[in-house]
């Protein structure tokens, strides 16, 4: 059987997730390249095989495209669609691609505000619109959530794709993993955590390490936002503070910010 052709692409992001994807032991790396062909990967390769298009991407068909980053420019949309056409399977890699990520924080500002903040001297020199997730433009077959992603979960998704499994990321909240780690709940320590509505899979990384969940993996499919708000209120969070909790990663989530652009 021919090895599946795999490629990585990035849009607006910090490239941290691609780094995480390749943060492998030498054995893992060898195993990985023995089962897949990485054909495009700017982070890790200098050469691309075959002809290039005007975005600098290849033109051959690919089996799996891992796409990192949110979409912030009209021109990105065309490139994104081109990748979709080339790929049998598209995987959103990391929070930016999956839910707009930190980039989507700017959507709470006016266009003028965020342009000035980013390019103080010449705010209108570059293209920049509302930050959106890739799934708002193209069909996404699987996601690897998180900011940054978890290397183990990346490998998991790769294996799922190889055996012909629909890649499964948990659809239950972070609390499940937090309890399995036998953590005391951070609400009892005066912190406010989005664990009860956030998709698990990170191993409750933040509450297990002295912090609280920011929701970087996005919401579960059926979050009870009203109850989450009641709880934060009961634990003395006022309306504004509550809102800023949700703003961090969940700007593109209709359950929290329904009437958004």
């Amino acid at each position, binding site marked *: 059987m021919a090895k599946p052709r795999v490629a990585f692409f990035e849009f607006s992001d910090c490239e941290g997730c691609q780094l995480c994807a390749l943060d492998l032991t030498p054995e893992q790396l060898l195993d990985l390249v023995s089962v897949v062909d990485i054909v495009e990967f700017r982070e890790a390769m200098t050469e691309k095989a075959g002809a290039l298009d005007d975005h600098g991407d290849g033109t051959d068909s690919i089996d799996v495209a891992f796409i990192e980053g949110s979409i912030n420019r009209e021109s990105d949309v065309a490139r994104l669609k081109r990748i979709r056409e080339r790929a049998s399977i598209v995987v959103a890699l990391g929070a930016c691609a999956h839910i707009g990520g930190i980039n989507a924080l700017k959507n709470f500002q006016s266009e003028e505000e965020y342009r000035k903040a980013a390019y103080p001297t010449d705010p209108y020199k570059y293209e920049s619109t509302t930050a959106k997730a890739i799934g708002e433009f193209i069909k996404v077959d699987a996601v690897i959530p998180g900011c940054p992603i978890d290397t183990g979960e990346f490998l998991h998704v790769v294996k799922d794709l190889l055996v012909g499994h629909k890649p499964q990321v948990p659809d239950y909240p972070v609390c499940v993993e937090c309890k399995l780690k036998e953590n*005391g709940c951070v609400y009892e320590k005066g912190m406010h955590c989005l664990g*009860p509505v956030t998709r698990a899979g990170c191993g409750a990384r933040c509450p297990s390490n002295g912090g609280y969940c920011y929701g970087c993996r996005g919401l*579960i499919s059926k979050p009870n936002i009203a109850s989450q708000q009641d709880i934060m209120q009961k634990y003395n969070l006022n309306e504004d503070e509550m809102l800023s909790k949700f703003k961090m990663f969940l700007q593109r989530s209709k359950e929290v910010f329904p009437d958004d652009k």
Partner: protein
Amino acid sequence: MPYVYHIKQHSKNRLQKISASENLSMFKQRRIVIMTAETLLISKQRLISSMDAAKSNYRIAALTKTNDDRYVYDYIGKGDDIEFEYHPTVIPPKKFLFLSKETLFEFSDDGKIKSELETTPTILFGIRPCDLNAIKILNEAFADHHGDPNYLARLEKTLVIGMECTKVCDEHAFCYRTGSQNAKGGYDIMLYPDGDNFAVKSVTDKGKKFVTKYLTKHTANIGADDFINEVLKKKEQAFSKEKLFPNLDKMPEIFAANSHHPIWEQEGSKCLSCGSCIMTCPTCYCFDVRDEVALNMQHGKRQRVWDGCMLDTFAVVAGGANFRGSQTDRLHHRINRKFNWLVHKHGQSVCVGCGRCVRACLAKISPKTIGDAILADAKLATATVDVPLDAHKADRDLYLPMPAKIVACESFTEQEKHFKLELENGKSLGHDAGQFVQISILGVGEAPISLASPPDNTPTFDICVRKVGDVTNKLHTMNVGDTVHVRGPFGHGFTPEIMEKMRGKHLLFIAGGIGYVPLRSLINQVVANQHDYEKITILYGCKTPSERMFPKELSHLAKIGGKISIAETVDQAEEGWTGNVGVITTLIPPIDLDPTNTIAVIVGPPIMYKFVLKSLTDKHITADNIYVSLERRMKCGVGKCGHCQMSGIYVCQDGPVFKYADIKDNEEVF
């Protein structure tokens, strides 16, 4: 109610008489402390050094404090690590017997399967009564009907040393509500603490051997009985202010009568489906099963991980239907497992009031609140069907599938493909019509599939597979010569008793869509023996003509005539379809039948049942003469994982074939 303790030295004979004569009923707040074992006294220091001595032969798990000041049950390095004062833990000691993640077997790409069971002798030290009751419940659940090999192997290697509580551990605990502050079992040895001294009493042979080997040399047994007496008296005092649930002994009946009590919606609407309650509960034992392959794709393992009914997707079947789609439905299910469905089976409340779920729930949903609200209402109903405990020894092969070769296959539609499989061991599957098998593709997973061929003595059998999930998608790519793996047959099908009841009757088969498959084995069986029946009527409805299963067979059946008649309908016609168009219920009124001599069998999608059942009732067919085969999510197939459960019934074990009369009052069915 005051707690009365009977503490007496009894001979073994006398004890046997007592247990036979006295009704040791589940909620009797009376304890017979069995005094045949040697009781003795020991100081804390000596107890600790005995544990240090035992460490050379056992690994010991006990309550300890972590560096960041959390209390957890963990394996200890030395006896001094043990915390003797109880502080509630997030996760109960169940985790040592039923691991949060464990391997059922390993496989390699050549199809070889191997499994290993636990062999390390382990001590669980200082387990409190609530958790001991929970261990007793798990011991029974994992041995019920089929012996779970992994759990029972571990249990056999484990010695449980309990420790009495002398006060209520915190404001969230409510063991006293469910009568669980006294251990009804689940331990080998009990410690009765008083300051820095302990009385030790062993109640099993395993416990006695351990005591003799590790504890006796440091101890005195004079006065031990009085010591225990004193400890229990103090305990009784400390708990005297706390009350049992009202009507505790009628819990199942009252819960059965209160499925529509407002408390369900009131508490359920707050629920976040966060799963904290089920992760921390000592008596939750549901699990999910997943295959994990190595990155080099050459080997892998099938694992089970904790799962639970409060999570949104727990009861979702491959086709996408969720049988408990709301938080309220799920809360009702979880609490009814604890306070209703499983109570008779275990002879005690299955919530042991440890308070873990209450501490963990940010929405502050508590079984205590729900119990108090519902049990105050003394309205009674007949409790749901009670299937008694049926203890079995460990079945080494319970989760190990057998290889089977595809010897024939044919695609019926885009979605449905038919396979003939042959077991490599050359044996016959030995199934009844209506049973199912679990088909494995190693690395992908396992899926329940109905058997489509009638029972026979050959090593081959038929399945018909609809593409709805990973396993079935993969199966569709497989062909003659390929190997799959099989477990089963499972469940309750059309048993010889049911077949006997059908003799001489007019049989009315009503199938919708792929529901024809589980019926096909039965239809073929009765058509082959048609002289045994008065009449055979087959009604078959599909969405479109191209979804019809076994089309050749259907036209063959239509041609036989005589006492066999078949009527078909589709929801939407396609080109070339000249038959009926309309829902399946339109086929029922015209049938000429004598309701006293008719038996109806229905299999189809969930939505179909309600309407078909109504039409049959209109025809005066009684619930005793209707059989249904139900679909639920299934993982284990053997009554363990909880996925298929509806109102205390395991569809994988007690079904999928049910007499309608047996389940019609069961609120989670349709």
